[in-house]
């Protein structure tokens, strides 16, 4: 009879210890660098597989053809006034290659780790580079650019990457002058999936918020096939000719 209380106390003590000790150990251990903590491997060469919106992505649609993009009245005015000749002038040629649209542009991606805290995404279309920084930016004053400033975090439960991009130069959601403004914020989710024949797919869901030109969020998902190597990698500068 005297042993039973001792055993019960022992069991309770073990339960408490088992619950607390791993958490204490986890709290004291510095988290691994984002590169080491990656739940999925995004590195490698990926090619856009254009099975959706073919006409809008592979060709230049006519002026005013912005079906599917939830433009507000101001956005429609700007899109309707698109001047293709102006896109050929210096400084304007990269407008269709900005962060809000580059994943939709037919091309290839080369994804590498620039360092333990920065995932680098090169796009051969327009020769663009995006840097997904897991560490906070050092400077609080970001210079606007086509690819803006991107902060990244792993979504461990979903085994995905979440990227938020701001500080963008105004550009085009589609090649025919469908605009996004410098107030745009882009949130992207990167997922991977296996395909038949031991292939891999990259799925990028982009959520574009632009209070200036959009009536509501513009959400599209694009997919890429993984390639064995970079033999088809072919950087081409921004061009007003598609």
């Amino acid at each position, binding site marked *: 009879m005297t042993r039973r209380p001792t055993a019960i106390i022992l069991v309770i003590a073990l339960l408490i210890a088992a619950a607390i000790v791993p958490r204490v150990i986890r709290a004291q251990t510095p988290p691994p660098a984002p590169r080491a903590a990656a739940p999925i491997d995004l590195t490698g060469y990926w090619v856009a597989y*254009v099975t959706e919106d073919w006409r809008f992505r592979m060709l230049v649609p006519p002026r005013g053809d912005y*079906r599917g993009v939830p433009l507000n009245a101001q956005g429609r005015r700007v899109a309707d006034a698109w001047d293709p000749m102006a896109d050929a002038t210096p400084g304007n040629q990269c407008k269709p290659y900005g962060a809000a649209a580059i994943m939709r542009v037919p091309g290839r991606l080369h994804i590498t780790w620039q360092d333990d805290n920065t995932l680098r995404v090169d796009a051969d279309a327009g020769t663009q580079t995006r840097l997904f920084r897991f560490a906070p930016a050092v400077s609080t004053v970001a210079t606007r650019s086509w690819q803006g400033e991107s902060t990244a975090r792993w979504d461990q*439960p979903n085994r995905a990457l979440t990227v938020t991009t701001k500080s963008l130069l105004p550009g085009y959601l589609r090649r025919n002058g469908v605009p996004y403004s410098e107030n745009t914020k882009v949130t992207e989710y990167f997922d991977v999936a296996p395909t038949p024949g031991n292939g891999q797919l990259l799925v990028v869901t982009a959520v574009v918020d632009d209070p200036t030109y959009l009536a509501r*969020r513009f959400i599209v*998902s694009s997919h890429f096939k993984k390639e064995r190597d970079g033999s088809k990698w072919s950087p081409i500068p921004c061009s007003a000719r598609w």
Partner: protein
Amino acid sequence: MLRALVTLGAALVIALLFAASGTLRAESELTGSWAALGSEDLAGDTIPVDYTGLPLNEEGRTRALTYSESQLGMIERQCQGWPAFYFVQGPFGLKIWSDTEPVKGKVVSYTIGAWEDRAPMVIWMDGRPHPSKFAEHTRAGFTTGMWEGNTLVASTTHMQAGFIRKTGPPSSDETTMTTRFYRHDDVLTVLAVIEDAVYLAEPQILTRSFQLSATELSPTGPPCITTFEGTVIGASTPHYNPDKNPFVDEMTKKYGVPREAALGYPETLYPEYRLKMRR
């Protein structure tokens, strides 16, 4: 002494289970109303010969070019345009609910509700096997699902032969579809990989995003009821000679799409084709 050791062992097992429970992952909540966004591929079925974005093989292309819209007047062909993949391709939202077994509350199946002509899809989660390949094929097919982490992966077989696009590109009754459901906050992205060795040169891949709806979507049905529309049973099937389809150049005339792209040649789905068009 033995009893003490047994007690200690049991305590350790319980303790380990208790500790591990802190790292167990929950599956994503997919049930609810997911609104269509209409931001991708709104077209694709408005021009008779628009096979852009499809990796058709020769058989699939030839068969597609024989299609005449007048076939919809035939009772036995009226529902061919709404196969299982239409929930990814079509303009409708998704209403998803689960059915649970009553004792432990475990999910037995998820159902994606019907919408107009689209049949409901039941995703069985209880580990049941797919039926024999000789079993009945239906428009919705037979679907099983499993969780890979937070992603629901569904496998669909036993679909009736029909269309991979409403304008006639065919899908055979050997077609299979693997679907992945990714939830990120209030956005649900569905990836569908459609395989059909009979009519496709390579798997067709589609992604479509939906937004969680604050208001409930109500599935409407019953899906695709056939009715007499003027073509008597036994009449010849309206069709075109594939070499003489009168709409074959419509995408070229209207949008400047090269004919090989309009006809779904697989090489037109890759970026280098854009460079080829520039030259």
